């Protein structure tokens, strides 16, 4: 958690987006993570996605738990409010925050220790509640801050830096998220920004629980032979099912794709997910098929990436609770307090 702010000098020729901000306006403080850390690449992808989506930086609320990954929100969208919560329990804080103000864009950043070990319960429940958010796990299979212990996503049989083999089964967060009811589930690799940036954009515009598992190698403790979360291993075993273009609702251009090479998913708000298919006949809207394909990948030792599952017309927690359209935190005394006359009637009913 750095306290060093980046110098605010901008090159005069930096291009501004429609919201009037340059890419640098979406940056945060200087990262204190190790040079080459996959997490910094993911932060860069988030910065790129926010810039390209013309988001007002202060409309983002970024929340995290504890761990290397959970430090990352300091390093992007510096003009937004952030909340480093406690270990494994960011999901509940984000759920509450989302209930209070449905209008902000919620970005949850977590790690595999944070979400798959101590926080697995809260992870499962935020997915099943359909909180409108983008939840990114920066997944390196290892505890970095405490120097190299296995996390719950480390594959069985993978070897630690000290040469110890992991004897426990791993938790696949993508499968968990689909099973629990997330309506947008993808997996990507920190070293593949062409796949990752559009995935983040699409997730951020998805009006429901969006989950991205991003394999993010730990250069210090898990980037060696025997690791299944190293740069080399992931590059060699990446099985991309699709690549994505995200097109906002206002720009409906769908003409430039030849039939059979791409599929288009139109979301409820009119935005389009254009998927260039790499996997044969892969349909990301088929939940059962998605689960099957992910499990097949796991069995084969592949890292299956891309948009794995999407429900284009999701409902979210606010819809389920039938809350008013305005943020609950904007309601005032007159909106909320029933007043003395109603109280007199209540008193009368209690005699």
């Amino acid at each position, binding site marked *: 958690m750095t*306290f060093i702010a980046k110098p605010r000098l901008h090159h005069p020729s930096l291009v501004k987006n429609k919201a009037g901000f340059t890419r640098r306006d979406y940056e945060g403080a200087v990262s204190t993570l190790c040079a080459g850390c996959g997490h910094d690449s993911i932060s860069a992808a988030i910065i790129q996605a926010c810039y390209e989506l013309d988001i007002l930086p202060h409309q983002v609320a970024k929340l995290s738990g504890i761990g290397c990954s959970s430090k990352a929100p300091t390093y992007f969208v510096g003009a937004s409010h952030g909340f480093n919560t406690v270990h494994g*329990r960011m999901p509940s804080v984000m*759920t509450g925050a989302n209930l*209070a103000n449905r209008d902000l864009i919620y970005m949850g950043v977590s790690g595999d220790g944070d979400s798959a070990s101590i926080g697995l319960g809260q992870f499962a*429940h935020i997915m099943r509640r359909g909180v409108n958010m983008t939840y990114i796990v920066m997944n390196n299979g290892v505890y970095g801050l405490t120097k190299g212990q296995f996390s719950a996503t480390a594959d069985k049989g993978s070897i630690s830096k000290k040469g110890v083999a992991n004897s426990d089964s791993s938790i696949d967060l993508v499968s968990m998220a689909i099973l629990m009811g997330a309506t947008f589930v993808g997996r990507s690799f920190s070293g593949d920004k062409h796949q990752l940036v559009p995935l983040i954009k699409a997730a951020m515009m998805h009006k429901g629980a969006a989950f991205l598992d991003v394999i993010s190698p730990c250069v210090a403790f898990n980037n060696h032979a025997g690791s299944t979360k190293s740069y080399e291993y992931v590059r060699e075993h990446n099985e991309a099912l699709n690549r994505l273009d995200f097109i906002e609702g206002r720009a409906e251009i769908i003409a430039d794709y030849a039939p059979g090479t791409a599929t288009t998913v139109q979301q409820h708000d009119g935005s389009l997910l254009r998927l260039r298919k790499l996997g044969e006949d892969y349909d990301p809207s088929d939940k059962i098929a998605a689960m099957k394909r992910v499990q097949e990948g796991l069995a084969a030792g592949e890292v299956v990436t891309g948009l794995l599952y999407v429900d284009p017309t999701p409902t979210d927690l606010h819809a389920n609770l039938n809350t*008013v359209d305005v943020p609950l935190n904007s309601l005032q*005394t007159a909106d909320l307090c*029933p007043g003395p006359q109603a109280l007199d009637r209540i008193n009368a009913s209690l005699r």
Partner: protein
Amino acid sequence: MPQAITAVNDFVVKFANVNGSGSASANELFARAILRMGVPVSPRNIFPSNIQGLPTWYEVRITEKGYLGRRGGVDLMVAMNPQTWAEDVKEIEPGGYLFYDSTKPMPSSAFRDDVNVIGVPLTAICNATYTDARQRQLFKNIIYVGALSVLLDIDPKEIERLFSEQYKGKEKLLDSNVKALQLGRDWAAQHLDADAVRLKVRRADAVGDRIFVEGNNAAALGAVYGGATVCAWYPITPSSSLAEAFSNHCKRLRHDKETGKAKYAIVQAEDELASIGMVIGAAWNGARAFTATSGPGISLMTEFIGLAYFAEVPAVIVNVQRGGPSTGMPTRTQQSDLFSCAYASNGDTKHVLLFPEDPRECFEFTAEALDLADRLQTPIFVMTDLDIGMNHRLCRPFRWDEQRVFDRGKVMTAEELEAGKTFGRYLDVDGDGIPFRTYPGTHPTKGSFFTRGTTKNEYARYSEEGPVYVRNMERLQRKFATAARIAPQPLRYSSPKATRYGVIYFGSTSPAMAEALDHLEADGHHVNALRVRSFPFSQAVEDFIHEHDKVFVVEQNRDGQLRSMLMSEFTLDARKLVSVLHYDGTPITARFIAADIAKKLGQFKVVSFDKAAS
């Protein structure tokens, strides 16, 4: 006939039942009917921690004087549970009455010579009238209420009126209940001497405009009036009915008239950790939020409570206390979570506690807690308990000032930021220890900050520098001192005669204490009293202790937790504070308090403590 207690509008009836037999509503009907006759009642549910089959009791104190604590002792036992027969019979005061189902004859050894016995063949009456097993069970309860109404002179019209309110629009149920009531009345009128029981209810005018309500219901209403829009909770006895009542109140009072949409969100979380996490997230984002729980829930929440304290995020936690430690006594009452709440979490933490005495204060303090949480930007605990929370209690009616608006505390707006007002999230600009905050999304370029549980400087930037840390911790102490000034102040009750003795008490002990003070006064023991209503303690508490030679501290826990907190907050001679402790899980009684204080006062008079110590 043995000696017989004679009393009008001043006696205790206890019903011993089997859990799940449907007796609860009949017993409550009995209490309410007396209340409708203008005679105050104070009922208590005494129930086991299980679903069905085990013993359950309902004790009704009928008291024209208006004493609402437990008195102790039983004048009339309605013994409907064979399992607890022996204990129940033992509990009756000499000259008291035993009312039982005489369908099966009991051996004479099962009775007591100094107790008057009234048998009514309830099962036989039911079996002769009803064929359905459940009806036989349920109406047995109404039949004993009918018989008791004859013996105690309770106006049957009041009971019938209560039936008609309860079964409005359900004529069939209304008729069958009225019939069962009449069955009991007829049998008693034909077979029993009207004077078999010399305990009588006479119409009075002692209830006034008071309301009859459970503390959990009242606290839930306080949350509605205080503007809570987010409630996250996890079921736990005895607090669950609070969240459920909040839901019911919101359904009636908080839907947008045009769209029908809810101006609130209630989430039954996956556990207590998540429920307090949601409260903190919502409050961080500018909504008023609360949770309701009990001791074991507090244990689970402590990590998050520490975060809210150090990151300075408002949160309201209503702790309906039960017997501890651990799972403890889930359905019994205690005041034993003071330590675990006041100092919840690791490191140097101190939290604000409010101690309501009755449902009226549950209402007021829960609404107040939402204001205090925003003003102080910290967790606020409303320390109620099972005794207040799950029992109907007579109390002054709820009041709300039409002019009152929510106090949102120091929140810097976009306009203020735009005008160039200095924003440092943890900067003490007013000297009261309370900084300004901004809600997320306030301003495109100004006022954003990072909230974290780690140490930081005045501008919310991470800093491990010693002086910065110390400065922050000292500011938090200043904030706590501010809390002592703005939280509910203690109330003092002075003895008519000057005295060197004082007594401090809090929360649900209040009604028993009020009565105990009368008893002590009548016996020539003069004591001044102070009811503490919040922690941190205000200066008035220290002044009160210094004004007296000895101060009794009455509380319902083993370790004298309030006494310890007084010792730790003030510079006191430890010998000055004398504990009066009751912690068996039942609500403390006036008899207990008066007897214990009288005994200890006697000891002081024989040998003064100072002499004994030297």
